[in-house]
């Protein structure tokens, strides 16, 4: 149990961290959910909504019971979300395999030094863009493995979403089974 002093300190600290204050910060934070779209509702596209309803009917059977239908919808939604995350995991590997990196590489330190030296001498050099795909192994399976290695941090982040979707699906199945057994009693 926290003491009064600890509670007061917690409240004081909480007041300090109330999210972004500047306009730019607020704008940036407002777009947090759009970075990968994995927290978006799956029913936001018509195709998904159709797929979802088909799956719900298959899970729930020919019932009209709204509770059972809702439980079935939760299972179907979590399962479709799982596929969505898996698709999001494959996409960066494909991109890295094709282009070498997810984001275009910036100039290296030595390039920057060369540019600054040239600028000091009154010359302007147009730096050549770096072709990241040229640094990729030409053959498979080395190319795919290298692509996976380059996007490993992104894959680790997506793994968290995948785990969450799987846990939600498992919970939904348990709820569905409980509902079914209560219905049978």
């Amino acid at each position, binding site marked *: 149990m926290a003491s009064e002093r600890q509670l007061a300190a917690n409240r004081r600290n909480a007041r300090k961290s109330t999210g972004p204050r500047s306009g730019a910060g607020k704008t940036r934070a407002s777009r947090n959910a759009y970075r990968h779209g994995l927290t978006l509702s799956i029913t936001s596209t018509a195709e998904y909504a159709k*797929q979802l309803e*088909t*799956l719900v009917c*298959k*899970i729930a059977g020919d019932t009209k019971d709204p509770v059972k239908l809702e439980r079935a919808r939760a*299972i179907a939604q979590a*399962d*479709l979300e*799982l*596929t969505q995350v*898996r*698709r999001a*995991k*494959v996409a960066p*590997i*494909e991109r890295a*395999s094709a282009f070498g990196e997810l984001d275009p590489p910036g100039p290296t330190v030595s390039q920057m030094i060369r540019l600054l030296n040239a600028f000091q001498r009154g010359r302007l050099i147009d730096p050549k863009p770096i072709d990241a795909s040229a640094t990729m*192994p030409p053959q*498979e*399976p*080395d*190319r*795919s*493995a*290298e692509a*996976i*290695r380059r996007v*490993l*941090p992104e*894959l*680790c982040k997506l*793994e968290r979403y995948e*785990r969450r979707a*799987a846990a939600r*699906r*498992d919970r939904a*199945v348990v709820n*569905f*089974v409980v509902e*079914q*057994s209560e219905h*049978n*009693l």
Partner: protein
Amino acid sequence: MRPKNELALLPKLPLLITESADEFGALCDAFEREIKPRGIIEQMYVHDICSIVWEILRLRRCKVVIINSTFRTALEHLLVQLLKKPSQYDYQVEGEARALAQSWFTDQEAKKQVSETLSRFDLDEAAIEAEAIRRSSSDLELLDRMLTSLESRRNKAFGCVAEYRASLAHQLRESADRIIDGKDVLQLEHPSDKRSTAA
């Protein structure tokens, strides 16, 4: 045999363009023969297990390739250490080490020379592998973390199938008991009784 109609309802696992859909299909068939899923929920779990196992295989392949691709750099680094005399700097032996490491993969003579250099310090080719693993340890650590997470989810999915089956079996048993006890048997009114009541 796979219930194709149910499987078609489940979203397809996105594969890399270099991966074979037939191989993934064969993996699914093998798991379905083993688990024999009944109903869409069991089918869903089996599909999940197949997707996880496929990803595990992908990452394990990647792990081997990462170690192999670091082999040349690892050997080069090791040779710089071994070839350098106490009075020398690294750059003085780097050229020789690079050339030797390059030809180690194709030239038997170079391979022999590397082995001799290694044995002078009581080392063998395992030292090259160890250095390759050390140099790619940050990537391997991330890969291992992902593999551990996937393996635990695969095991959980197996448990979920068993749990779902057990609860379904329990429900069926209860329903059967109720029928045997006559609790759920519909009590039909005899037509003659109905007539007598009306009269």
